[in-house]
């Protein structure tokens, strides 16, 4: 019986290698590749040598991993684009509204009701170290931009956004002049990362979060880690935010509130989507106007409509067409802008 089993196995191994062995071989090959990419000792090299000698197929598996790794480097840009755009086919996905969140989302959108007027942030402190360098990045309406800072931090700018970055020896300072940006901050306890927005400042050590400055309303959403938000020059008002917390404040008013949100929904703009849950049409349009060249006004007749769904942010005509297909509304041009009005019943 045992002999039979053995011979079956032997046949399998000589003709077609069992799947589990192939899997193990490639697992080891990939593990060696990852390990050897870092700093390794001569003992590691010897162990790798022994693994190669154990079976000529190990060498071939390693070559395959090496070739794949080269392909990844060569196609980095296309891959990164592909990983950002997910599930593009279904552009409007209605979902159940959650009453607890309704008021809050509405409030947030209301804060965005008027197109952003920009004032320069109050918080401008001269860098303390001479070797610091200041750089500015900005996006136009409808643009996204990825900024990689020299310290390894990543900043993604949403539509119509401007930031000024100063990397100094003892701190990293970013001023969000306008718009919205998501920060993925490289860990560096010796150099705090401080984002100034309006008259608030956000301090972090290493985390990911999103800040929106629109019409003097400041919104900070934390995806990972912990950040501290305070009014500029007033550390007594510091509030600590954890993942899933959203801070809402208005410039010129030290009052603020903190709500629980799903960071994935706030960060959906990175995938070119905006997510709404039972939001008044007027507030939806206010959010959309941040992306539009031609601003849209909601006519009185359509103000009582509400919208739940995910809108893909591509071009203005397409977005308005989707709204029209989803709600009983129609668009008309008037002067330089567009008017969204209720469709008369057929």
């Amino acid at each position, binding site marked *: 019986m045992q002999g039979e089993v053995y011979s079956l196995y032997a046949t399998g191994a000589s003709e077609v290698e069992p799947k589990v062995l192939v899997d193990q071989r490639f697992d080891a090959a990939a593990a060696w590749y990852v390990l050897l990419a870092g700093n390794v000792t001569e003992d590691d090299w*010897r162990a790798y040598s022994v693994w*190669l000698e154990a079976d000529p197929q190990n060498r071939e598996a390693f*070559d395959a991993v090496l070739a794949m790794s080269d392909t990844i480097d060569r*196609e980095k840009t296309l891959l*990164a684009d592909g990983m950002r755009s997910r599930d593009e086919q279904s552009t409007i996905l209605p979902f159940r509204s959650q009453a607890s969140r309704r008021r809050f989302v509405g409030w947030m959108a209301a804060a965005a009701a008027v197109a952003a007027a920009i004032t320069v942030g109050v918080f401008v402190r001269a860098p303390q170290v001479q070797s610091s360098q200041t750089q500015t990045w900005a996006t136009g309406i409808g643009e996204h931009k990825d900024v990689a800072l020299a310290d*390894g931090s990543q900043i993604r700018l949403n539509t119509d956004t401007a930031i000024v970055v100063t990397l100094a020896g003892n701190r990293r300072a970013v001023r969000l002049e306008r718009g919205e940006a998501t920060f993925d901050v490289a860990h560096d306890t010796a150099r705090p990362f401080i984002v100034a927005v309006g008259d608030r400042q956000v301090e972090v050590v290493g985390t990911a979060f999103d800040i929106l400055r629109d019409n003097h309303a400041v919104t900070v959403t934390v995806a990972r880690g912990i950040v501290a938000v305070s009014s500029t020059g007033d550390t007594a008002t510091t509030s600590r935010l954890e993942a899933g917390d959203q801070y809402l404040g208005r410039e010129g008013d030290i009052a603020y509130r903190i709500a629980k949100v799903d960071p994935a929904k706030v960060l959906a703009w990175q995938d070119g989507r905006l997510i709404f849950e039972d939001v008044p049409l007027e507030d939806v349009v206010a959010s959309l106007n941040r992306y539009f060249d031609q601003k849209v006004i909601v006519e009185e007749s359509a103000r009582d409509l509400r919208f739940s769904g995910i809108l893909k942010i591509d071009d203005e005509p397409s977005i308005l067409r989707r709204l029209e297909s989803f709600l009983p509304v129609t668009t008309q041009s008037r002067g330089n802008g567009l008017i969204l009005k209720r469709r008369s019943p057929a």
Partner: protein
Amino acid sequence: MRDELVRFLTARLGQAALAEDIYQDVFVRLNTAQLPSEIGSPRAFLYRMAFNLANDHRRASSRRVARDGAWVDSATHSAGGEAIADHPDVDHAIDARREVQRMIAVLKELPPKCREVFTLHRLQGVSHRQIADTLGITTKTVEKHMTAALKQLTLKLRKRGET
């Protein structure tokens, strides 16, 4: 050290004669190349150089195989005597495009954490250390995710007949 390196190169390249050639190369480069000012372990450094040169050699030979294959293809076309316009560049671009689409499909099937780690490191250039700090995991776990992603990509995109 010589025997050890030649043995390593033989294991990596599969041919003893080739291993000797690459070993010579290592020492030619040692004399001409700009060496880093600090070398932690000279032996590990020699291994690293041998490894890099061997990898370059493997890359070059796999390119040669691909190019020779392409040449045979177009020769066959012209031997047919027909005026078929060959567009190897276009064909290659379409193949590359298709390969990227398949890679994206594989990446999207990975567990979310694994996908996130891979994207941060390989597509956005974030270091293992930084990823570990930001996600609150150990660098060992980062390596584990990187290994899993690389393995899946390699296995799933393997052409038939390859090991």
